[in-house]
């Protein structure tokens, strides 16, 4: 979230799209109802289904799954053509005035630089035009046909209400009504917040849907303000933390990235990431990248990392493909290219698409290690459970290890909620039996591997035998020790320019501004620096006071970065540093104190006066929000609607007859998986998967209370579809995709409505995902038997929300 849960109460309009917080985040959703009750706010939901979020909404629309960019693109065009944008904000805080290179273009659904054989773009032309001074050219009048504002306008002119309606299935009058309500937040003193979750991420165009939302919020001037923002509600309790800590194939902690194999030179690696300002005088905070990187290397390698050896740059693994994401890994695994695999609190048999392929892949491993508190399906993928898991153990040669771990009630540590709050927790009981904390398992396993390398030698032992491991009990690193390590400390006395000591050796650092690139500081995750300082563990704080009445409780826990609760909050003030409206006052320039003050920690150099002209988006080289994603996306600088890889609609209505623009042209799909896609004539129904309020993924079917309240697998179908296939509520149905099937009880409901797409009626099938073959609930089918093995072009997040099936009476 750019903002946070309590801040939702400051919104004047709440757009819930790609999420269903009333059921998936019920307690957080109370701040939506708070805004409705006490801030006279309106809630609008846009969803394929009639959800419980929709049930309390003041306005709603039903959208065909996977068509959100069509709706948002049309909205962008509407805002521009009716001139309902926040002018001062757009001109100063976005890249609207920057001029784009003349060779950038878009034709027949494809951006310039496309290589069809590689299904990827050369992004060279997706860049601002640089002036002689080395900075991006600017046109204050916004009239230059190649300025970003005019390019946005041109790009979305095609998204007329009629076009949007024919793609999304939303009637034109509903579209018009909702767009008008959203446009009304373009005034400075009204904000809209956008709430989304996996309903936006799990598409082959997922990242671009979210980009489109960000563009809408920039045009309306809703970023950085209380009650505004683009808010990822997210899934697991610490999914934010593990993302922050970089546990993803291409990342290092704190959103730093691993080098690819071409980047053999350390200086060039740093240079590419230490982004210098492209607009004069801007902050471009990533220019400090080397300080964060060297501090990580000192944290990991201690004295072994020196300037002379490029801080052990050579030791870090280099990437030979863009991502070693899970789809890529299971593709390789299914071809026998992996020998070992570890699943730490992860259930891929249930969680990854095309379950048959996942079973094949796991069966080809030499060894599989599962660490989990629970008896997961993955740990027993080799065991026959009748038609719920129809395998022959004697034919599966994978050696499987199952290691019992603690659950939340049995370990100490911090987790990060979707509002970026690091909250500390304590163990309440010892684990059952011989179960152990993950920290101890990883510690002890590493000790054993290191010992083998010390005893026997082996291939490239350097990073293993030199890894800093100064925990008091090496096989049992404590949460406190690890938290202090990722916060970071001074390794030597730090001094200012005059030689005065500003920080003594071994002191915990109060913030990342003290990190240095000369090896004098260590920090395992720079964005977390400040969480455990000389003042102690700030993550454990519990002062819930709210002195400004904005819902900002700066003394509760600790939020990254630097305890800021609303990102880009400098944008909550105008160019002169004054709040946009008295009701939206949050951070402002105090000329008496010559600094920024207010309800939050300023996301800005606190003493940089408005007259200096530094802009609020401090992580961007231009200092402004990007309407034009110059280099950050792989599939285009502007979001474009493409159909899901499995769609009931045979063509992209924006590009009829243009086959290569039917689906996201930059999304990767492996040949075998393309062959496994279903055709609309065989699989005519649009399917989407989702979660129920009573269950959490595949965990709570192991908890008795949750199993009692939702014991049995079901699918939701509309009355029309039920009549078509001769099913009444309570009948068993078989849901079939081109990859597999599930059987479940049919819930026949008005919540699923047929839609007219062009001249064709499309039915949606709703598939809750919580059942499997272990646990105390009734046994059920893993729904990923159905889903396609294709992901978002940028993140490779699988397309679980939009695929096609056929429903039959079982």
């Amino acid at each position, binding site marked *: 979230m750019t903002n946070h849960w*309590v801040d939702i109460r400051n919104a004047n309009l709440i757009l819930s799209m790609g999420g269903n917080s009333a059921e998936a*985040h019920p307690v957080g959703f109370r701040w939506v109802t708070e805004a409705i009750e006490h801030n006279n706010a309106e809630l609008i939901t846009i969803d394929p289904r009639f959800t419980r979020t929709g049930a309390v909404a003041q306005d709603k629309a039903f959208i065909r799954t996977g068509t959100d960019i069509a709706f948002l693109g049309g909205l962008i065009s509407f805002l521009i053509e009716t001139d309902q944008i926040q002018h001062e904000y757009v001109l100063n805080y976005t890249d609207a005035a920057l001029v784009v290179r003349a060779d950038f273009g878009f034709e027949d659904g494809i951006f310039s630089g496309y290589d069809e054989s590689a299904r990827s773009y050369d992004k060279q032309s997706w860049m601002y035009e640089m002036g002689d001074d080395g900075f991006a050219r600017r046109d204050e009048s916004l009239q230059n046909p190649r300025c970003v504002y005019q390019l946005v306008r041109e790009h979305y002119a095609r998204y007329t209400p009629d076009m949007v309606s024919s793609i999304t299935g939303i009637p034109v009058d509903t579209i018009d009504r909702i767009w008008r309500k959203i446009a009304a937040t373009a005034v400075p003193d009204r904000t809209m917040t956008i709430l989304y979750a996996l309903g936006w991420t799990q598409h082959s165009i997922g990242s671009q849907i979210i980009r489109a939302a960000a563009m809408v919020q920039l045009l309306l001037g809703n970023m950085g303000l209380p009650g505004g923002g683009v808010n990822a509600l997210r899934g697991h*309790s*610490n999914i934010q*933390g*593990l993302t*922050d*800590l970089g*546990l*993803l*194939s291409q990342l290092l902690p704190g959103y730093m990235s691993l080098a690819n194999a*071409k980047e053999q030179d350390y200086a060039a690696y740093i240079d590419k990431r230490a982004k210098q300002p492209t607009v004069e005088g801007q902050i471009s905070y990533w220019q400090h990248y080397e300080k964060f990187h060297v501090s990580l290397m000192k944290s990991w390698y201690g004295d072994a990392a020196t300037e002379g050896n490029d801080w052990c740059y050579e030791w870090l693994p*280099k*990437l030979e493909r863009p991502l*070693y*994401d899970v789809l890529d890994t299971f593709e390789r695994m299914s071809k026998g290219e992996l*020998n070992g*695999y570890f699943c730490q*609190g992860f259930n891929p048999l249930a969680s990854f698409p095309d379950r048959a392929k996942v079973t094949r892949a796991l069966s080809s491993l*030499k*060894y599989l290690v599962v*660490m989990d*508190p*629970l008896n997961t399906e993955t740990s027993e993928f080799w*065991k026959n459970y009748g038609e719920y898991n129809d395998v022959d153990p004697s034919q599966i*040669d994978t*050696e*499987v*290890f*199952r290691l*019992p771990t603690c*659950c*939340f*009630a049995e*370990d100490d540590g911090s*987790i990060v909620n979707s509002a970026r709050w690091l909250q500390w927790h304590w163990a*309440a009981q*010892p684990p059952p039996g*011989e*179960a152990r904390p993950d*920290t101890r*398992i*990883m510690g*002890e*396993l590493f000790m054993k*591997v290191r010992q*083998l*390398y010390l005893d*026997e030698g082996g291939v*490239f032992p350097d*990073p293993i035998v030199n890894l800093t491991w100064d925990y008091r009990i090496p096989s049992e690193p404590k949460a406190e020790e*690890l*938290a202090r390590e*990722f916060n970071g400390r001074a390794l030597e006395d730090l001094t200012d320019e005059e030689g005065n000591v500003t920080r003594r050796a071994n002191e915990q650092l109060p913030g990342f501004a003290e990190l240095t690139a000369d090896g004098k500081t260590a920090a395992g995750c720079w964005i977390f620096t400040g969480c455990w300082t000389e003042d102690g563990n700030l993550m454990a704080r519990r002062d819930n006071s709210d002195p400004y009445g904005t819902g900002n409780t700066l003394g*509760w826990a600790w939020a990254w970065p630097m305890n800021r609760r609303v990102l880009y909050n400098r944008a909550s003030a105008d160019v002169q540093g004054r709040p946009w409206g008295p009701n939206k006052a949050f951070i402002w320039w105090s000329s008496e104190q010559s600094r920024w003050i207010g309800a939050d920690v300023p996301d800005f150099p606190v003493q940089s006066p408005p007259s200096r002209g530094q802009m609020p988006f401090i992580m961007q080289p231009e200092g402004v929000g990007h309407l034009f994603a110059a280099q950050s996306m792989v599939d285009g600088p502007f979001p474009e609607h493409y159909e899901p890889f499995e769609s009931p609609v045979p063509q992209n209505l924006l590009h009829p007859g243009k086959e290569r623009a039917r689906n996201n042209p930059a999304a990767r799909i492996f040949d075998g998986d393309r062959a496994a896609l279903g055709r609309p004539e065989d699989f005519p129904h649009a399917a989407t998967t989702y979660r129920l309020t009573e269950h959490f993924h595949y*965990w*709570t079917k192991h*908890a*008795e209370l949750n199993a009692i309240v939702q014991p049995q697998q079901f699918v939701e179908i509309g009355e029309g579809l039920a009549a078509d296939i001769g099913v009444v509520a309570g009948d068993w149905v078989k849901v079939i995709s081109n990859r597999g099937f599930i059987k479940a009880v049919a819930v026949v409901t008005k919540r699923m409505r047929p839609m007219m797409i062009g001249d064709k009626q499309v039915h949606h099938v709703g598939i809750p995902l919580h059942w499997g073959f*272990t646990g105390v609930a009734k046994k059920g089918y893993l729904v990923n038997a159905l889903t396609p093995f294709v992901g978002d072009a940028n993140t490779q997040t699988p397309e679980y929300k939009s695929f096609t099936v056929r429903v039959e009476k079982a």
Partner: protein
Amino acid sequence: MAINVTRRQFFKLGGAGLASSSLAMMGFAPEPAEASIRQFKLTHAKETRNTCTYCSVGCGILIYSNGDGARNVEQNVFHIEGDPDHPVSRGSLCPKGAGLLDFVHSKGRLEYPQIRAAGSDQWQRVTWDEALNRIARHIKDDRDANFVQRNSQGETVNHWTTTGFLAASGSSNEAGYITHKVVRNLGMVAFDNQARV
């Protein structure tokens, strides 16, 4: 004299002994007086702060366990409820969180290390040492056999692609950090967590 006694203050008063028990008779009972029986049951419990383990709202919870913290007394969790001081959740829990106790004590909890041998249809219980020794051996053998120091273009890559790792976004930052530190320094690149899906 207006004295507002919250549930939690009343709870503490109750613990203070006989002198405070007359407060209730004087009419200073907390608002939901009916709930007091359950609160007294909690009087002798150990209260531990924690955070709900399910979704990413991060609701505060209070976990109550038996035992007074004395030596040799093993804590056993018997009650979990929302933390009323938490600024987001203010004491409430959703239908998922309300069942947390049954997650802690689930019949599906694993208690011992186990191995399923190739081709077998059953688990075999083993000691931690045996399990970790065998896993460490697998790691070293596979890494030594397949670690790539230089690729076919002669570039230094120092990576190991034949073993992969999925980390858990239900685990703590501290577990995540040490996992990253170990996995990356073994040279693994096929490394993800639930954020990928």
